[in-house]
């Protein structure tokens, strides 16, 4: 494995909203602000779901050395073991001043955010922790509960070594508060065999989607599979696609920075086209609210639908369900012929250090190990940590070991090419201010089902966006290299 400094130019947003939807909470009581947190918690937290903290890694046996607590949201034992194998154990072997690292497991993304807020407001919580993306960091930064990482960025050259698109959003009010631990892009996944059988062509425009969709429906299949019954936030995948495809990266960036309002005709047009797809029953035959995430892959694997619009995290799941046909992955068609092709990118996971850690030196060492590409590259390129940790650096084809899924390799290399050229768009979970984002996905179904007008929807988004902008909570949005 090799990483060249200065090789990295730009990178895209990312964040795995699927992993966001899981929940957990951690109750920690202490004096001072903890009482306030507990006070709110006792009556409000019963609805947060359960939290659990489980011991993770082995002890290195170094007497008097630190035991770090590592906050994570992946609850599956195989995932935890993989991270242990590729990251934690090697780290412990080479860092004798850390005796052990214990997992603090939060049951999913929502629980992760809620649990961290509670714990850190009580000056407790894990020493190093995941968060769902850079847009989740401003509250921690404002409260002083996340440590500034400027020294680590300077010492390790992360500003240039890692994808700039991934590190820039961690910059808040002039300071770095997090490091990106993975990136992801939205793509079009399709049933290659079905396309061949019926002689369909991949769509290149919105009109192509309309034509193809009708052809697919005539064969009795669904056009796009989707399942959001256990992930309301996952509706935003379609928001993100629509805005990127209709506005293009340049105009979307103007909207995200407040130069163009959400009520702009171009944004209205994006929502109108998205609703058109819904009204035509192209999206899960209008049944997305009754289908779960796993089921949507199972149904796609059963040949129920021709396509899926989803992110690269799908590589960690698709092989479980798609066994009877060949699947393909390609870039999503743009809806507006006047805009350049981009891939909506995002950062779905970031890492940060708790300001109240008793072991700041060890926590910094661990964060460095976690962030610096060599530490977990092996786990990633073998496909075992696709949706957990993805090094935000350029890879070459030769770095992937023989036998790695060729579609995975091809997709990652394509994304990296687009990052290098600056042809990236923005996913909502990385580049939207978080309240605007939450309103957007929570109310998309209302728009699609006709209980809320597009104008009201975007008007309310603008109102929330304005308040977040006034509070200085807009995330940094990297500049793409596109003309439109």
């Amino acid at each position, binding site marked *: 494995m090799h990483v060249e400094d200065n090789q990295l130019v730009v990178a895209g947003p990312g964040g795995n909203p699927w992993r966001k939807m899981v*929940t957990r909470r951690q109750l920690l009581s202490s004096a001072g602000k903890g*009482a*306030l*947190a*507990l*006070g*709110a*918690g*006792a*009556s*409000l937290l019963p*609805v*947060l779901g359960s939290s659990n903290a489980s011991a993770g890694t082995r002890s290195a046996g170094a007497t008097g050395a630190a035991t770090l607590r590592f906050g994570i949201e992946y609850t599956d034992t195989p995932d935890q073991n993989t991270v242990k194998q590729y990251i934690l154990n090697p780290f412990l072997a080479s860092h004798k001043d850390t005796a052990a690292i214990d997992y603090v497991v939060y049951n999913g993304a*929502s629980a992760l*955010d*809620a649990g961290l*807020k*509670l714990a*850190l*407001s009580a000056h407790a919580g894990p020493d190093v922790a995941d968060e769902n993306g850079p847009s989740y960091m401003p*509250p*921690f930064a*404002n*409260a*002083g*509960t996340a440590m500034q990482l400027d020294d680590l960025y300077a010492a390790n050259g992360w500003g240039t070594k890692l994808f700039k698109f991934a590190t820039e959003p961690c910059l808040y009010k002039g300071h770095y508060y997090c490091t990106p631990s993975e990136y992801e892009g939205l793509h079009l996944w399709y049933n290659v065999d079905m396309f061949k059988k019926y002689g369909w062509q991949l769509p290149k425009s919105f009109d192509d989607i309309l034509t193809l969709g009708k052809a697919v429906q005539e064969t009795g299949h669904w056009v796009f599979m989707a399942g959001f*019954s*256990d*992930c*309301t*936030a996952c509706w935003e995948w379609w928001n993100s696609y629509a805005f990127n495809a209709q506005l293009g990266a340049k105009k979307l960036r103007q909207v995200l920075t407040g130069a163009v309002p959400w009520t702009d005709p171009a944004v209205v047009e994006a929502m109108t086209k998205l609703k058109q797809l819904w009204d035509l029953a192209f999206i899960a*035959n*209008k*049944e*997305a*609210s*009754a*289908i*779960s995430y796993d*089921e949507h892959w199972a*149904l796609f694997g059963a040949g*129920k639908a021709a396509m899926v619009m989803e992110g690269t995290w799908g590589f960690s799941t698709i092989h479980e369900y798609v066994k009877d046909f060949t699947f393909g992955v390609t870039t999503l068609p743009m809806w507006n012929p006047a805009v350049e092709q981009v891939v909506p990118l995002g950062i779905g996971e970031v890492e940060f250090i708790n300001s109240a850690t008793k072991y700041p030196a060890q926590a910094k060492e661990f964060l460095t190990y976690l962030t610096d590409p060599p530490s977990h590259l092996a786990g990633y390129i073998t496909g075992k940590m696709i949706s957990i940790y993805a090094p935000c650096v350029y890879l070459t084809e030769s770095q992937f070991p023989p036998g790695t899924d060729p579609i995975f390799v091809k997709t990652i290399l394509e994304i990296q090419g687009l990052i290098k050229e600056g042809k990236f768009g923005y996913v909502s979970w990385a580049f939207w201010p*978080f*309240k605007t984002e*939450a*309103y957007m996905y*929570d*109310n998309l*179904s*209302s728009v*699609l*089902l006709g*209980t*809320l007008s597009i104008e009201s929807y975007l008007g309310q988004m603008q109102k929330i966006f304005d308040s977040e902008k006034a509070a200085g909570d807009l995330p940094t949005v990297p500049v793409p290299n596109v003309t439109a």
Partner: protein
Amino acid sequence: VGIVTPAPPRRAASPLLVTRSSSRTRAQRRRRFRAWLFVLPALIASGGIVGIPSLFTVGLSFFSWSGLGAAHFIGFQNFVQLFTDDSVFVVAVEHVLIWTVWFLTIPVALGLGSALLVSRISRGQIAYRTIFYLPVTIASVVVSKIWQWLYDPVVGVDPVLQAHHLNFLAPNWLTSTHVVLVSIMIANTWAWWGFLSVLFLVALGQIDGTLYDSAKVDGANAWRSFRFVTLPLLRPTLIFIGLLTTLWSFITFDYPYLMTQGGPAHASETLSTWMYFNLINMSQAGYAASIATTTTGFLLVVIACYVYVRIRGWEV
């Protein structure tokens, strides 16, 4: 006539009686003190775990707070927004009212009906009780998943019904904004009515059988026995179930959240799911607290009604 007889003293004022009375009072005080002493740990725990946080929550509803950092006092602003600028809150209130009416009628009728039927049999009653109660023991997560599968548009009952041209029985259970709340209530009812059935069975078992014999001698038929013997004697149970159901309906969270997360289009939103969304997804802890406080306000009215009923002695 004209002679006024002084009323005898209620108690003789003998020194012996005074002593007995005093010692009885002291003994009563000691007993009362001991009782409070035993209750004290629970009171302290309850006050610490429920009371203080509840007061904090009420206080928090007057603040703007993200859940981290400093909170800013904003007076009644959260409540003003809640009652004047939050259409989802209104929808959520409507839904919990529908939920309350449903659970005060359907599961109660099912529970009472089944209990009346089962109470008439002597052999196998335990088996029936067990079967009725079994769904109550299944975690709501599991029940939700079972019903999600039943409602599934691809592998659930809908495709089967549609294949038999019974489309009117396949109303898109979890995707229709008109049906989704009922779908969730059906799932929850399945898991709940057995509990009520067992409660009613226990209550029915405590009714003195000679009352029915007397009613029979007086010429009462089955309906009149039910109307004038069973129902009045079930009143304490019914009132208790009514209170429990109302309180529980207003704070219902698990089934709506697990099955639809309040959607689609807020069609199954409840006060608790809306509070959760504001707390977790919007990081508006103060606003979420105002929803919690308002919900508690609604429930205080319900509890006041219950207390009134008890004071009036209608419960027994």
